[in-house]
């Protein structure tokens, strides 16, 4: 046996094999695109806005001076900031609450077997995959002050009286409700898909065991399904909050923050101040108010998710 070993030839791999197995070379190569993407499209703008927020830069001037925290003082002193902050919170919390309720119901319905399930799944996913601007234009018509489908239908069915004609995007409370409805419509598909993935990851045996152990629908749902779904639910909520908190598209397209800033959120206000108003420094300062809140939300949820992690 020893002689056989002594005669053995060292196997040499071709350069292709050597490259494909060289992890020290491969991992930076594979990670590079992602890191480049984050640095260029996230890191750089973020640092730029940090820089802007302590300067007096505007769209029209080429000078830039350090002004300390003056921009932040200005923002906090403004009445609109507090309205926008309040609106952002209402917008986010209310919409995410309903997203959670609807997504849970939908995910459970879709995890059951029935004919034409793929069609229903497709329809539910549509709001998420269709460009939001297209969807928002549809909603603009639905909420239109003259042609509103809701109002015409309501009157035809005599739910609305002959003189009731709500201006959906024009009356402060209705405008807020309207943009919340659109945001729910937009986020529900994503949350549904996430929860659906969570539901399918629970082994059928566990549901069966609970059924045999004497649990009815509600006990199974509340004591088995929901707790097991909690980590992934937190992920869905985290996504929803981040998307809603930082999003300006729905508000921008439907109400532009109106009437009288009653639907203004921090994201739209930052845009109006910085880009349309030309006050880049002020806009940067407003948008930075979003940051600590989101970091806090992310940390809290990731901690919760880790604690409730189950195998």
């Amino acid at each position, binding site marked *: 046996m020893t002689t056989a070993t002594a005669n053995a030839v060292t196997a040499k791999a071709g350069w292709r094999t050597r490259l494909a197995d060289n992890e020290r070379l491969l991992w930076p190569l594979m990670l590079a695109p992602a890191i480049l993407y984050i640095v260029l499209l996230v890191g750089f703008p973020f640092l730029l806005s940090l820089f802007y927020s302590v300067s007096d830069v505007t769209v029209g001037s080429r000078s830039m001076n350090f002004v300390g925290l003056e921009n932040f003082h200005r923002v906090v002193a403004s009445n609109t900031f507090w309205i926008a902050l309040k609106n952002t919170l209402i917008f986010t919390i209310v919409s995410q609450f309903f997203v959670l309720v609807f997504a849970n119901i939908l995910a459970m319905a879709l995890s059951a077997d029935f004919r034409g399930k793929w069609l229903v799944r497709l329809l539910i996913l549509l709001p998420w995959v269709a460009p939001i601007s297209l969807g928002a234009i549809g909603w603009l018509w639905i909420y239109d002050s003259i042609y509103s489908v809701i109002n015409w239908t309501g009157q035809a069915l005599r739910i609305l009286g002959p003189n009731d004609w709500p201006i959906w995007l024009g009356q402060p409370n209705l405008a807020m409700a309207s943009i919340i409805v659109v945001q729910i419509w937009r986020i529900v598909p994503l949350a549904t898909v996430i929860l659906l993935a969570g539901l399918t990851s629970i082994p059928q045996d*566990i549901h*069966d*065991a609970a*059924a*045999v152990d004497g649990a*009815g629908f509600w*006990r199974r749902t509340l004591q*088995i399904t929901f707790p097991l779904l909690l980590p992934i639910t937190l992920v869905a909520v985290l996504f929803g909050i981040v998307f809603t908190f930082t999003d300006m598209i729905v508000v921008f397209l439907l109400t532009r923050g109106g009437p009288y800033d009653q639907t203004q959120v921090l994201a739209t206000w930052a845009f109006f101040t910085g880009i349309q108003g030309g006050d880049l420094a002020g806009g940067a300062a407003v948008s930075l108010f979003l940051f600590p809140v989101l970091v806090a939300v992310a940390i809290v949820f990731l901690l919760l998710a880790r604690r409730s992690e*189950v195998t």
Partner: protein
Amino acid sequence: MATVEARHISKHFDEVRAVDGIDLLAREGEFLVLLGPSGCGKTTLMRLIAGLEQPTAGDIVIDGRVVTDLPPRARNVAMVFQSYALYPHLTVAKNISFPLRAVGMQRDAIRKKVEWAARMFGIERFLDRKPRQLSGGERQRVALARAVVREPVVFLLDEPLSNLDAKLRNSARDELKQFQRDLATTTIYVTHDQAEAMGLGDRIAVLNQGKVIQIGTPQEIYGKPMDTFVATFIGSPPMNLVEEGASYFGFRPEAFLPREVGNSDDSVGFPFRVTRVEYLGADRLVYGVLEGRTAEAHVISKMPNNIRAEIVAGERYDFVVRRREIHRFDRNSGRHIDGSGR
């Protein structure tokens, strides 16, 4: 304690007849094993009894009551799953007490019952742990404790030992049999492992392709197989089958021995050319061909190690089988045709 009866029960999944018109009765306090190859319908039959599947036709009767239309929770059966299906987010104590909380039992009574069940399976130390902190054997005990705790009328066990390693499986088998005897609860046990079936079952029902082929005590199943399927499914190595005209004749490997050790008045002799000898510790397996036959007849002899006769591959030997150890089967239907096998 109760009887469990399947009355001409069928379950079809589209074109597949998973369970195809089965009639079966588990007697009071009996340990009935459903044995068959994978895909034979044994697990589906158990799920039908539990109420986790709705039959295409037929009825399930538990304790004289037709329960076909009742949901699982109303049948008072307990089930142990192959994966154990413990609730991963609940402690062992909460897992065991889950069925009791589901029926709204008082907190004090629940505590006593959980302690009783935990003591029975020696898992008192683990009550505050989560399932993922337990070993496979400990999880299996928790699953059993959860099944036992509300004293159901029937236990349904779906391959509960298959996830344990070989050594643990033997001791777990022993304990399982012991506790079933103590509680005297009717038990239906699904397995594809014949050693488990033989060791545990009061009676065994052998299933194939959605039908019960034979039901009987382990001795009956082994000694008087109804057809070639049962004959070759039970026994390791399986029964030797040799073609002869319009029938097969069969004999167990351990009944096929050299003439100098196996000879008696009713012996039938066969010239046997050995092709290979396998040494298995306690036994020797001798592979070879029966000579002087039209079709090549490959057979195996299983010789315990106290038979010292020297057997060498490539040589011819004179082997014998006692006449009463020979079974005859119809070649077309596979059915047993001798008087001995019913």
